[in-house]
């Protein structure tokens, strides 16, 4: 919805030398954006307010495996030579906690309801990956569906300017090539960068991106630079080790509700909700009333929930999914099956976060293959 697939010509592309990356941030600020960008915090690459290019994770790579994430030294000329950390764009658009509305009782006992609208500054995000653009498009389908647009999500979504960087260093947990969502960004960005040793190819993906692009002093992209970018993408495809079974898995998943594998995975699964929290497409939430102690007012609060929680299936005095088997099954059958009927595609974009950030390292690709057959674990 934000852009069109750019053509790789020098007319809407240019080259930004590495030393001039600060001019991108300055141009964004001049257009009224604050920046969010990747930074090394507490042992992981996370998105945080970005003031200067020097704060980017230069020379930082990562090593990811099932249940494990570590940073490690990388090429000092690179600020984006890593695969995604735990966050996606999700926290920026679908807030982990927020107040939706307030109610107050006046002296006569009358109730007055008022919507709580978030004040969201215009935010430019640097370093967005293809998988997260695909995930954002899916979240848009859910939260911005015509006729039932979520005002809180919309407010945050419309404040975003997305500067993507093509992924050149997928982790061992990544499988975006098999879902068709990466590693190169196809659509959904405002600007797209390819990081090369000496700087960045900059491409335009939208009108907002064009406005920023026009503020930059760029050189023409050389044929060798286009080649280097294309070759990095090819290598990023070839480097991926994991694969999700292709196509609509609704049939094999819903046809295998009694598969013994559900019991096997439930013995390992902690039903802790880490997978759904780091998943860039999961949108489930709970609402709670938070009354003031004096009882005169109450905030209606929304927060991230998970199909792995007890409350998620709570209906009339009991939880329908009281054990881990049924909760894991709910997640996988919805994510890889039910989404096809609801949103026209699978809910998985191949980012691999649920594999890396699962404390016990459960692998969605392995489980899907085991349930749906056709894999080595089938």
């Amino acid at each position, binding site marked *: 919805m934000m852009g069109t697939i750019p053509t790789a010509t020098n007319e809407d592309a240019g080259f930004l030398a590495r030393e001039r990356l600060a001019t991108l941030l300055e141009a964004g600020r001049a257009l009224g954006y604050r920046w969010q960008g990747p930074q090394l915090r507490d042992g992981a690459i996370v998105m945080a307010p970005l003031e200067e290019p020097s704060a980017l994770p230069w020379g930082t790579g990562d090593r990811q495996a099932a249940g494990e994430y570590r940073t490690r030294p990388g090429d000092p000329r690179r600020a984006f030579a890593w695969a995604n950390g735990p966050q996606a764009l999700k926290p920026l658009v679908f807030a*982990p906690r927020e107040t939706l509305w307030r109610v107050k009782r006046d002296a006569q006992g009358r109730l007055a309801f008022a919507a709580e609208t978030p004040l969201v500054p215009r935010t430019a995000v640097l370093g967005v990956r293809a998988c997260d653009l695909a995930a954002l498009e899916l979240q848009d389908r859910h939260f911005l569906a015509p006729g039932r647009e979520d005002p809180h999500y919309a407010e945050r979504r419309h404040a975003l300017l997305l500067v993507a960087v093509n992924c050149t260093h997928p982790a061992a947990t990544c499988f975006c090539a098999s879902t068709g969502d990466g590693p190169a960004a196809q659509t959904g960005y405002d600007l797209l960068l390819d990081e090369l040793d000496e700087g960045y190819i900059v491409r335009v993906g939208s009108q907002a991106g064009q406005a920023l692009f026009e503020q930059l002093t760029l050189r023409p992209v050389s044929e060798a630079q286009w080649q280097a970018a294309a070759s990095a993408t090819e290598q990023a495809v070839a480097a991926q080790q994991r694969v999700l079974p292709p196509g609509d898995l609704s049939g094999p998943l819903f046809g295998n509700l009694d598969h013994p594998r559900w019991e096997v995975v439930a013995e390992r699964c902690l039903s802790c909700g880490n997978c759904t*929290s780091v998943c860039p497409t999961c949108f489930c939430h709970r609402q709670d009333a938070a009354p003031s102690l004096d009882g005169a007012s109450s905030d209606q609060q929304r*927060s991230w929930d998970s199909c792995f929680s007890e409350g998620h299936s709570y209906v009339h005095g009991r939880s329908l999914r009281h054990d881990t088997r049924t909760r894991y099954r709910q997640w996988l059958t919805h994510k890889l099956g039910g989404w096809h009927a609801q949103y026209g595609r699978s809910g998985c974009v191949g980012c691999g976060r649920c594999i890396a950030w699962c*404390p016990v390292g459960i692998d969605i690709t392995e489980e899907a293959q085991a349930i749906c057959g056709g894999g080595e674990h089938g």
Partner: protein
Amino acid sequence: MSTRPKVAVHKFSSCDGCQLAFLNAGEALLALPELLDIVHFAEAGMLDPDEPVDIAFVEGSVYTPEDVDRIRRIRTSSRYLISIGACATSGGIQALRNLGDTRDWVGAIYARPEYIQTLDQSRAIAEEVKVDLELWGCPVTTAQVVAAIRALLYGVAPVKNRDKVCMDCKRNQTVCTLVARGEPCLGPVTGTGCGALCPAFGRDCYGCFGPAENPNTGALARRFQGLGLLPVDIARRFLFISNDAPAFAAEGRKWREEG
């Protein structure tokens, strides 16, 4: 004559820390006296332990024969009894003695052990009398206590939330100490309520809010083993603040026997 509900705050074997949930309540401390009559709260100065009350908050473990008599009297004179904190609900430090033989401990420490009157086991309040609501945590938070009071004033059951600490940790966008640093974090089996406080400061959760609902302690213990913990270390993770909660006690004792 006031129609405000009467409240008492009682202390048993404990460190007094949970009572600070009231004393450190900030603005709520100003609102509370408008809503409630606090008739007994020794740490705050009010002393009338036998006055019948609508809500009795009880901190601490039942530890001595005298404690047994006292908690029974409190139960009789209270409409709702709410136990607060790990000592009152799930163990606490002094319940670690349940792992050994109390007579041996007393004999090893005191010159005249015959003067020591103590029960064989440190017990949660609910093991002695009917408890209407348990607030877990070491210590419990002001938010927990205030939410329980507000719900009872509305005449509704307080909302129970025993989701895992991980849920709040991820809402906070804290980097996972287990996955990113290999720390033996108990967050995936521990109930939230603290707001994922320790991981926010870079420390792994040590389970002070007790087991979450549906805790898979066995799978997490095996993961700790994979991180290099010895059976005795795994046992210590579970047999700490919430050592007497059934899920943690069973897992901890299992690894303790292996060590």
